[in-house]
């Protein structure tokens, strides 16, 4: 099927980029191996979709492809949640910086007035 070629090509591009990030040193070896395994499994799922049926049957989902979609949605929800929490933390840290600047500025002005 045509979609399989597209997906494999996409995976190869992603793996290449992961590889160059590892070579640059911005990705640890452990992480690199993790992503390699992840994309290897993805390749298997793309080339032999029926291979997921076994796991799907254990979980009680009718078709392997459906299970992949379900799991992807759950994973995406989780990632979005993580990012939202992280953004909130960032927001609070930005506030701390802005506050510190505002207070030191106010104190500086105050000292000048008292001179």
């Amino acid at each position, binding site marked *: 099927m045509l979609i399989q070629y597209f997906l494999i090509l996409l995976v190869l591009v992603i793996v290449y980029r992961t590889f160059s990030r590892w070579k640059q040193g911005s990705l640890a070896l452990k992480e690199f191996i993790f992503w390699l395994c992840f994309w290897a499994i993805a390749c298997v799922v793309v080339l032999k979709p029926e291979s997921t049926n076994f796991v799907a049957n254990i979980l009680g989902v009718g078709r392997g492809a459906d299970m992949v979609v379900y799991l992807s949605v759950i994973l995406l929800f989780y990632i979005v949640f993580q990012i939202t929490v992280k953004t909130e933390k960032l927001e609070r840290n930005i506030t701390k910086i802005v506050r510190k600047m*505002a*207070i030191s500025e106010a104190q500086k002005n105050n000292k000048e007035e008292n001179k």
Partner: protein
Amino acid sequence: MKITVVIPAFNEEKTIFDVVSDVKKYVDEVIVVDDGSSDNTLTRAEKGGAVVCSHFINRGQGAALETGKQIALLRNADIIVHYDADGQFLPEEIKLMIEPIVAGRTEVVLGNRFLKSAIPPFKKFLLGGGILLTRLTSGLKLGDTHNGFRALSSSAAQKIIIEHNRMAHASEILDKIGKNKLSYAEVPVTLKYFPVAVRRGQNFFDYLKILFDLFLGRMV
């Protein structure tokens, strides 16, 4: 006793001068935190006689209140009053708000607008949800939970550190009053619901956003 009023202001050049000069008659010091306004809020507030400071980017009302409080404490405030920049409150009511703290009866005083003014019905319904939620989460029995008019003793203000940048700070303050077992009282205040304030007030989706922010705050 040094009474300091903290006013967070975001693009309030139309009202801030009058609000500051009115409030100044009743207290020792007014601190305006300009929250990254793009208009002349800062200079108007300074002209009105306020001590000013500014967030160079907008951080939200909760963040501005916390900044104002820290400056107030550095300037040795004994009582800190939270006040709105849009002129919804009556400055002469500040003395009613601080009276229980001056007399040493309580550490925190919260304004309650239901005891006095008429509130639009749908707004009343929304606020009712807030009242119920507050009773469940913080244990505080209040008649009005999202009122920006508050007075805190300096020791109470030190204990209540506002971390929510946006509107959820109102619930957060109540939460921290409960957690720190601070004594509190409600004082009836007048609220002017003039058209500008109604438009700028919280709508239903803002309340959902507050709920989400509160939930998020527990995860951070």
